[in-house]
């Protein structure tokens, strides 16, 4: 198992904020819109340096999404910022008609996704957003794994022409990917090469997969770990290549088991290379109030849950 270390913990939303600020410096067409969550989305640096290019919409997310769509007409690159719940379910029809179907170059940037929002509870902990967004034709769906990767992803989507959903979160987690990384949309990131099982993980679950990989190594299981930061388009080649080598797979996501990364992988495998698959995901449930760590344990998203899923997947190999 390749050794991963970190010197600090940071929130991925701050990676977005830093990326947005940098994007604003690099391209004068970048504009940012926010629905009364500028501080929570870490958009202050952008707003302070480029006040003319920052639009405070107020608590009106539907209006924000359609204003963003309109702003693309004339060449602007709008980044919208609010919580993941209000970036998707609340405004699904606006995104569907005015952004996705209309093919507009809007970057929907969504913080506080998943259970790790913590104490605010289930009204704010969306676990369905990946599914909602990946079903929209032409929508790119990205869920980076740490601060550095979120910053790099924010800059990468600026360069990409078309609608993007960028998902990140609130808790401070280890920063273990390089600061100078190049983020390639749709290109899986090999975390650790192994032979016994493939573990694919997205977002906050990547570090947990690494912790699980270390435990598995102690048990004599050699896990291949892949960071799927882009859920759509899925790097099918990387997943298939790995599963053909290992013969089974575990998918890890801070999301409902319905509609997320795991189902994308299942569709890929059943139509090309059927193999045992286990899901580490929320079991069709809403969340609740508690600390992020308590919730990740209760909803079975801990490294120990990944280890158990791996053992089950391996036992199902023929």
């Amino acid at each position, binding site marked *: 198992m390749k050794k991963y270390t970190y010197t600090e913990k940071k929130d991925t939303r701050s990676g977005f904020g830093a990326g947005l600020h940098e994007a604003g410096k690099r391209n004068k067409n970048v504009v940012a819109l926010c629905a009364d969550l500028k501080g929570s989305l870490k958009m202050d640096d952008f707003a302070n340096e480029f006040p003319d*290019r920052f639009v405070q919409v107020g608590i009106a997310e*539907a209006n924000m999404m*359609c204003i963003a*769509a*309109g702003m*693309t007409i*004339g*060449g602007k690159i709008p980044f919208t910022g609010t919580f993941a719940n209000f970036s998707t379910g609340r405004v699904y029809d606006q995104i569907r008609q005015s952004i996705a179907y209309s093919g507009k170059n809007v970057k929907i940037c969504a913080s506080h996704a998943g259970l790790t929002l913590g104490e605010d509870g289930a009204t704010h902990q969306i676990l369905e957003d990946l599914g909602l967004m990946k079903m929209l034709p032409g929508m790119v769906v990205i869920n980076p794994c740490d601060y550095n990767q979120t910053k790099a992803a924010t800059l990468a989507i600026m360069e990409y022409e078309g609608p993007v959903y960028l998902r990140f979160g609130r808790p401070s987690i280890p920063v273990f990917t390089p600061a100078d990384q190049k983020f390639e949309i749709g290109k899986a990131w090999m975390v650790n090469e192994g032979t016994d099982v493939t573990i694919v993980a997205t977002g906050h679950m990547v570090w947990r997969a690494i912790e699980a990989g270390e435990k598995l190594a102690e048990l004599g299981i050699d896990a291949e770990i892949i960071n799927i930061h882009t859920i759509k388009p899925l790097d099918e080649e990387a997943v298939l290549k790995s599963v053909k080598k290992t013969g089974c797979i575990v998918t890890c996501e801070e999301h409902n088991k319905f509609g997320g990364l795991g189902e994308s992988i299942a569709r890929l495998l059943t139509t090309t290379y059927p193999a045992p698959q286990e899901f580490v995901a929320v079991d069709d449930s809403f969340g609740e109030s508690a600390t992020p760590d308590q919730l990740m344990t209760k909803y079975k998203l801990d490294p120990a849950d990944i280890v158990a899923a791996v053992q089950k997947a391996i036992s199902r190999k023929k």
Partner: protein
Amino acid sequence: MKHTISELEDIASQVRRDVLRMVHAVQSGHPGASLGCADFFTALYFEVLNHNTKFSMDGLGEDLFFLSNGHISAVWYSVLARSGYFEVNELATFRKLNTRLQGHPTTHEHLPGVRIASGSLGQGLSVAIGAALTKKLNRDNNLVYCLLGDGELQEGQNWEALMFAPHHKVDNLIASIDYNGQQIDGPTEKVLSLENLQAKFESFGWHVITSDGNDMAAITKALHYAKSLTGKGKPILNLMSTQMGFGVDFMVGTHKWHGTPPSDAQLDNALGQLKETAGDY
């Protein structure tokens, strides 16, 4: 004036013929408000709008128009074709397989003149505001126009947009309301009353003007006047009274023709009331 009022009225008559023939041919579509807005669209595209029929999505250096109540696509398509965005004969493909003239307007099939999909109601004013903000950032002094249905105002998002535009001084925007008092299920007063729209818009901070949308001289004058009010710190709202089905005696003033196509005999009757001025497609 680029055209006389009489010339504009002739164009509107041809546009009404197009609308009726389009919805009749596929026995689907929305003739009622399309007929009611034929004068507005004609005045806008043939007289008021600074536009380039060699279409570009970004529309730099020209005025932009957004249709929020996308179900009246037939009248928009007719006016786009008649003003030169695409061949008039393409109107014959309306709502048919593989057409660029989808039931509701879309950019997906790349029809020149359309810059956003609409149909799901309540989104167009927000889109127009966004385009107007970009015009300001680009230091482009051209204007953004938008048309909304009155029934559509029951969608809450409009009131988010109505609140936003005055606060942010979006004064390069002219929104018109097709104030015909009808919607699918009946008169708006019965379905969900709009109450005093002028007072509502004014209290939100818009500069409101009223107009008669079925009088070519009046609507042309109103749009020119609206233009003169731009750049003064307030968005402009043209509360435009129209009659659904205007121009055809048995269709006028009722919600029954909102989404109902005419029969063969009804089409003949209706076309007999409308002069063919520019040649049917």
